[in-house]
Structure formats: C-alpha cells, structure tokens
C-alpha cells in the first residue's frame, strides 16, 4: 500500500444554501490517471476549486500527501505541486508560446527574481522538451492569441508540465476539439500520467474510454459510482442519472 497523493473525505461545499459538494470522498494514487465524469452541475469543477484552494469546504478533509489543503492559499498549493488546467483555456494571449511556457517554468517567483531572470541553457532545454512533448515546437515564437483551439489546450497542459507537478487537474480538455485533436490529447495525458498523477474531468465518453483508466462518476456533489468505464456504464444508477438521459 502506497500512501495516496490526493485524499478527499466527506467534503461538503455550500453556495447560498445549495450543496455543490455533498460529503464527497475521492482517493488518487501516485501515478494514477483518473477520469471524473458527471452531468452538468454535478460539482466537478467545484471539486477542483476545493483542491486548489479557490473554494473552502464547510466540512471534510482535503489532503495532498501530508498537507492539509484547506489551510493553504492558491499560490501555496500551486507551489506544493498541484497544477490545474481550467475549463476555459487561459493561456496568455499577449505572450508567445515560448514565453507562456517560460512563465510556467519552475523558478523563483518573486518580483525581483523575475526582474533579474535570465534564461539558462538548462531552462531553455526544459522548455524545448515540453514544446516537443505537446507538439508545439513549430509554434514556439507565435503569440498564443493566434493558436487553434486544440493548440491552446495543449499549451496550457504544457504550462502545467513546466511546473513539474505531482498532481495535475485537467478540466474538460477536449470540449470543442476535433476527433484528431481529442486523440492527440488522450495520448498526451496517458504519456504524462505515470510520472505523476492526473485527474481529468470530461463529458466526452469516447475520450474517457480512450484514456482507458479508472472512472469516478459524480452526481449532486457526491460519488455515484467508481470503476472501469465498462463497470460504470453498466451501473444502473449511472444509467439513470447520466448516461440514459
């Protein structure tokens, strides 16, 4: 038994009396690639908000290795080694692909350190490695504003990789992607997991099937079902609330 990377137990979040998360529990092992699915409003994004410190739960335990995440702010949690890809791609349009990755690179982040920063050969090699991994090498000097939708998503995943996180949270990466882009993304995430844990939230079941790993189904803020894609697809409760609609 290895210690889990991420441990959520009995987590509840309330917005104006509405329970967005209701005693949610989730355990993610080191190197695991986990898909999280669920209907709109199931609480998937809220779960990520809780892990990254954006939203505070009213009850429950949220641990990353031996850190209590409910006590840390967003910057501290990011520095611990949790990277997050948002639902809306948010790369920095005014900067080039290379500059986007450079900002994400692990390096001292204070204002003076940034002012004195000079790109070392080592850093440049790390950036180039991620450019290759994400298939963006040819776009390195283009401004992010002119990338295609799929490329923006990969750039954002690339930015997460630059930070060398232990846990990667990816929210709806393939929404709006072409089939080819979706395949590329599934392959990219499978490649990434292993060295680190990855949690992917997604609606697209073909994509989740392409990932081919353990699936957690959320509904009304708690876990409805968990297991292989075939298992959850055949779970009658899941069929009722999600797949059968």
């Amino acid at each position, binding site marked *: 038994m290895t210690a889990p990377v991420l441990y959520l137990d009995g987590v509840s979040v309330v917005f104006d009396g509405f329970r967005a998360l209701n005693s949610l529990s989730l355990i993610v092992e080191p190197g695991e690639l986990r898909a999280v699915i669920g209907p709109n409003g199931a609480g998937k994004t809220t779960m990520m908000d809780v892990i*990254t410190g954006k939203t505070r739960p009213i009850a429950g335990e949220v641990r990353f290795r031996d850190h209590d995440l409910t006590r840390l702010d*967003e*910057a501290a949690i*990011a*520095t611990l080694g949790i*990277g*997050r890809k*948002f639902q809306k791609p*948010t790369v*920095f*349009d*005014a*900067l*080039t692909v*290379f*500059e986007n990755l*450079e*900002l*994400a690179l692990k390096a001292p*982040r*204070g*204002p*003076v350190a*940034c*002012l*004195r*920063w*000079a*790109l*070392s*050969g080592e850093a*440049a090699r790390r950036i180039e490695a991620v450019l290759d991994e994400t298939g963006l090498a040819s776009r390195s*000097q283009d401004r992010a504003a002119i990338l295609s939708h799929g490329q923006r998503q990969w750039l954002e995943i690339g*930015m997460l990789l630059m*930070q060398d996180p232990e846990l990667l949270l990816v929210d709806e990466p393939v929404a709006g992607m072409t089939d080819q882009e979706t395949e590329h993304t599934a392959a990219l995430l499978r490649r990434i997991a292993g060295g680190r844990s990855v949690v992917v939230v997604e609606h697209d079941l073909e994509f989740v099937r392409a990932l081919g790993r353990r699936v957690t189904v959320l509904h009304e803020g708690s876990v409805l079902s968990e297991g292989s894609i075939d298992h959850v697809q055949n779970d009658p409760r899941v069929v009722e609330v999600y797949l059968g609609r």
Partner: protein
Amino acid sequence: MSATLASPAPPRAAAARNVLRWVLIGAVLLLALLPVLNRLPLDSALHVSDFVVSVTGKWITYAVLALAIDLAWGYAGILSLGHGAFFALGGYAIGMHLMRLIGPRGVYGHPTLPDFMVFLGYRELPWYWWGFDHFPFALLMALAVPGVLAAVVGFLAFRSRITGVYFSIITQALTYALMLAFFRNDMGFGGNNGFTDFKELLGMPLNTPNARAMLFYASLASLLGAYWLCTRVTRSKLGRVLVAVRDAESRVRFLGYDTTRIKLFVFVLSAVLAGLAGALYVPQVGIINPGEFSPGNSIEAVVWVAVGGRGTLVGAVLGAFSVNALKTWLTSVAPDLWLFALGGLFVAVTLFLPRGLIGLLRRREP
C-alpha cells in the same frame, strides 16, 4: 541565450521600430538644445523664449508621471486614478525643502519658521519638518513617502483582491482625502496657499536662466532614467508576468506567483516615479498647493497615457507632451473649453484609437 531565442520581429515592425528609435533620439537631442537656444540673442531666429523652456521642462516632469502610470496601468492593468497624489507628495517634500531654504528672507524674517507658520502662531518647527533643510533628505522623502503610501494602499487593496474600477475609485478617494487634509491649516503644510516664494535650490537662485536650464536637464535626465528603468522592467520576465497579471490574474496565481507581491512591487515603483516627477515639477513652477491633489489631475494624467497609447511607454511620453501642448494652446484661446476637450479626447481615443497615437505607428501589442 535569451537573445537567440527572442522572437524575430517581422521585418516591417522592425523597420518601424528603428524609425521610431531615431525619431526618439532626435526628439531628445532637440529637447536638450532648448536651454541652449534660450541663451541666443533675443533677435536670433533660433531664440527660444523662457516660457518655452519652462513649459517644456514642466511637460517633461508630466512625461515621467505618465511613464509611472503606464507601467502600472498599461502593463499590470492597475488603473490608479490617484497618481496625482504621489506626484503632489513628491512636490510637497521638495517644497518643504525650498521653504526651509528661504530662511530669514521671508516676510516675517523668522530664522527657521516659514511665513505661514509665523502667521499661524507656531513656536517651533513641527517634528515632521525636521531634516527637510537637507536636500538629500528631502529628495529621499519625495520618493519614500509616495512609495510607502502606495505600499500601504496597495497591500490592503491587492491582498483583498480589490481590482479594476473598485481600485480606481479607492485611489480617487485617496487623492481627494489628501486634498482635503492638505487644505487644513493645522496640518502644517501651508493650508490652501501651499508653498511658494521659493528663493533657491542647491545654492542656485531660482528664476534665473541657469537654474531653469539645470532643472530642465535634471528633468530630462530623470525622464531618460525613468524610461530606462521602465523598459528594464517591461522587457524582463517580470514585464511578461505583469502582462499576464493584467490579462488573467487568477491564472498567474495558479502558476504559483504571488500576484499581490508582484502588483505591489510595480505599484510602489510607479508611485516612486510619480513622486520623482512631482519633486522635479515644483521647483520649476515655483508653487505647490493642495490643488495638485485634486482628483481631476489624476484623471487627466491617465488620459495622457490613453491618448499616447498604453502599454508602450513611448506612447505615455508622447501622450503627455501632445495633450499638454493641446491644453496650453486651448487654454490660451478658449480656456472654458478645456474640460470638454479633455473628456471628448478621452471618449474619442477609447472609441477610435484604443491603442492610442502609438498604435498608429506600431502593429504588435506588448
């Protein structure tokens, strides 16, 4: 290393940038010539009047203020509508020094107390006036007081994630509150009359061609220094972080940057530059009063930057010069129209020229 990796600019943009560089160097040389041309005989065709030298010197200090605003607003997206307060505080600090230098030459002839204190029945110099008889101390205060004030206001606002229009309103309120405070006689800053009747600075009698030239060159050197400092910031990784904060602050936070600290750094730097601008301004115009804190001044300075083109630095300088040239001309032909013109200019630029005058020359945003 970074040079080899920097994006190769498209040829047209590079050419435009080269032209711009030479235009700038030419403009600086031309400015530097003004005090020299001022010394030519009056009947010389190239003679430049005292008025032109002192007005241009004043505009140069405005350009420093505009750079300060552009650094915070154009790059980091921090729209301060209270930079006039930092400018005025810098001006007051130097004004206090100039008052101390008047010495017994005041109307009341008191050896240490400025006239207004004698008039108000002060017995001795208030403690916060101590040290202002030394120029280095006064200069330090002209930079430090705006810096510390910006640090406090910025810390409270940025830490509470107050951004956008809310931050702008807070800074407007700040400069308004300071104006009311400085209007009060018991503050010890000369009430609504402020400071004036300065005699000398650094041993130079003011209001002489020599003093005018020296202050002019000090301002020009400060403008170049401030420009160098700002480009140093904006071309570093910090500059790219600022742009990122401007466009998507929460994303930057998730990348592990403490955006409060980043914004605080640039806001304080910006306030210090504004203080420097005020310190150069006051000896040249010969007066400082609470009117300098009026909220309209801060808004006007933001309009300079908007007109010139924010997020470009050069645009801020260009805007400060061109709007003030327009103002000087308009207030001489139709003084009542100025506020309408300023408002109209702002609307027109926002609607038709969102990247300002400089946007007409450049195609790529920072």
